[in-house]
């Protein structure tokens, strides 16, 4: 059941990602990108990352895409672009993407947590991932104790506290930069 829902979301995400690239109208591209992001949020829910899924809907499908649509409509870019010409660059890009996908997908689709544990420990025999990553065992317990956001908050505010503070500086710089760039006269 979970796998069927996963493949449904995956198929819709891939088809709408293709439509993002092929649609000639930027507004249509933006709406198909929203569709991709909502499907990814569904996959996040299936992968037991409920908090990330909720943030994905709020921040990406909500805030970031509204910003995109706002700029498209502000600049009145809703007209169709010229059709993609099949130049040598076009063929090179499609070839490169095809090679990249054909190399990555067969290698990754069979990847399992046993393989991850094997690469992590470098032991001769396949290790049990539950023994290698003790956090897997304690994750269910931690979620019960602290709740889903608390499970992320603990590493965020303990181990990654300095990077977390640095992101606030990044956001401040981005706000100042956006105002300076977009304002006609300061």
């Amino acid at each position, binding site marked *: 059941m979970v796998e069927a829902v996963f493949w449904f979301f995956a198929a819709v995400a891939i088809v709408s990602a293709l439509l993002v690239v092929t649609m000639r109208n930027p507004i249509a591209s933006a709406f198909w990108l929203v569709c*991709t992001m909502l499907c990814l949020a569904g996959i*996040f829910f299936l*992968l037991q990352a409920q908090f990330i899924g909720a943030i994905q809907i709020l921040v990406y499908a909500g*805030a970031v895409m509204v910003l995109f649509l706002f700029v498209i409509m502000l600049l009145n870019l809703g007209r169709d672009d010229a059709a993609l010409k099949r130049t040598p660059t076009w063929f090179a*890009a499609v070839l490169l993407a095809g090679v990249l996908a054909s190399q990555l997908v067969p290698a990754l689709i069979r990847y399992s947590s046993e393989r991850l544990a094997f690469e992590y420990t470098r032991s001769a025999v396949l290790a049990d*991932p539950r023994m290698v990553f003790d956090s897997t065992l304690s994750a269910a317990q931690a979620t019960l104790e602290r709740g889903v956001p608390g499970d992320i908050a603990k590493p965020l505010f303990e181990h990654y506290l300095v990077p977390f503070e640095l992101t606030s500086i990044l956001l401040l710089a981005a706000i100042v*930069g956006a105002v300076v760039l977009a304002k006609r006269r300061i």
Partner: protein
Amino acid sequence: MLLGPSLAVSAILFTIGVAGVLLRRNAIVIFMCVELMLNAVNLTFVALSQAYGSSGQVFVFFVMTVAAAEAAVGLAIILSIYRHHKSVDLQQINLLRG
């Protein structure tokens, strides 16, 4: 476990994003393709965090912060480029000076 299929889906989405950046000429659509690539990487982080522990989800948090900052600054740059050239077609914008 959905680890392998999730990584494969994220690879496909990343590849589509790469193709979009190479194919399209509209600056805003190229930008959306970059967001698509960032989303694909987020899926990788979440899939691996299932096996490795929840610190992978912290990195998704950081990627989202960077993506939001990038969207704000990038769209401001597109706005000021549009004021100069009256176009966001990257084929016509090839000079750093205005």
